[in-house]
């Protein structure tokens, strides 16, 4: 019983720790259909991110990377990443992300969004 209590105290004390980062929300949204070309992709994660060792790439339907290679962390929200996009034509785009949270847990994933005119 004492072990369980000590364990729970340690759990509570470890609140400073980060965990595996999951995608919390994105804009354009996961699986969404939008009417106009977005100027950027924003992804908010459940943990703060190390941008230097994280990546977001956006590909068109032919597999060509279309983003502007300028991944950056939001100034006020360190769980939010931005990457800029050029003017996109109609079509389906795939966002592929691989991120490292501040305690170096690695997670990755992908989703699509569709631009219609």
């Amino acid at each position, binding site marked *: 019983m004492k072990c369980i209590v*000590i*364990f729970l105290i340690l759990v509570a004390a470890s609140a400073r*720790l980060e965990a595996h980062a*999951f995608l919390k929300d*994105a804009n354009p949204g996961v699986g969404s259909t939008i009417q106009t070309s977005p100027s950027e992709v924003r992804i908010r994660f459940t943990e703060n991110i190390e941008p230097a060792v994280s990546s977001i790439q956006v590909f068109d339907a032919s597999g060509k990377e279309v983003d502007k290679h300028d991944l950056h962390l939001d100034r006020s929200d360190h769980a939010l990443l931005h990457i800029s996009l050029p003017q996109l034509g109609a079509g389906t785009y795939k966002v592929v992300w691989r991120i490292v949270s501040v305690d170096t*847990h690695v*997670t*990755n994933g*992908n*989703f699509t969004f569709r631009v219609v005119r």
Partner: protein
Amino acid sequence: MKFLSLFFWLVCAVCEFSATDRAYGHGFAGARFFPATLSTDDPFVSDELSLPTVSTIRTPDDGGTRETGISVDISKRITPDFAIEIGDSFTALNPHDGPAANGFGNLELGGKYQLLKNGEHEAIVSIGLGVEVGGSGGRSVGADSFSTWAPGIFFGKGFGDLPVAVRFLKPFAITGQLGVAIPTSASTRSVTIDVQTGERDIEVERHPDVLEWGFALEYSLIYLQSQVQDLHLHAPLDRLIPLVEFALETPLNRGEEGQTTGTINPGVIWAGKYFQVGVEAVIPINERTGNNVGVIAQLHFFMDDLFPNSLGRPLFGGNK
């Protein structure tokens, strides 16, 4: 003993809050997060603690026996691909006829090696060897006096590589196990003496090799939200993984061939940052298994997220 226990945890705490290196992940394969399942073994190698797993069901023994178990299991990575496991359970038996009994079951030890992990196809394959240490538990709760070895293979596969046309099937995943439990004793004999007649009666209980097989089919709302379609689900729905587990055993020899027993366990797991909580109904598949529905619930901690600098990282070989 109490001092040693306290010392152990203090050492863990010191390591945790002073170390600078980092540790990596539990049940991930690519974008797929596999939760720890309650009734069948996981395919992944990780640092995890199930404390406690509580189950209760009425079995057909002795005119109907309420069997309640509380167990603890811990898995510790030695290298990034190899982990050792230790577990034990406390069982309380309350038969309809006869006295109640309770006690600890046999100690269970194991090792698991991850053979394959493919992120693109969300696939994991592991092999393992477990042993139930005979004589380490209480005979009153049915703990065997002999040991049982159980080699097995474990797998996990996410359906994330399905085509876009069936994208709402992508959150499905399956995990499973296939193994054989091999007792070190083919049979045990017990002698009873009739008090009135003085006659001796010898009972022979046979212990067959048993095929242990099972799988879990799960649908991850986490995966649905983050990889397929954001349905704007709010907590706690956005972290739910409904699943159904099939936990089955088929004796292979010694007169009990093919007499499969097992349960089908529908339920749900909620997975948070540092722990998950799961609950399942336990439904016998046939009369041989039982006639009553039970329940199993588990609190499961992700040690690699809780203690990434100490308990939650492999002892050797770095991280990956």
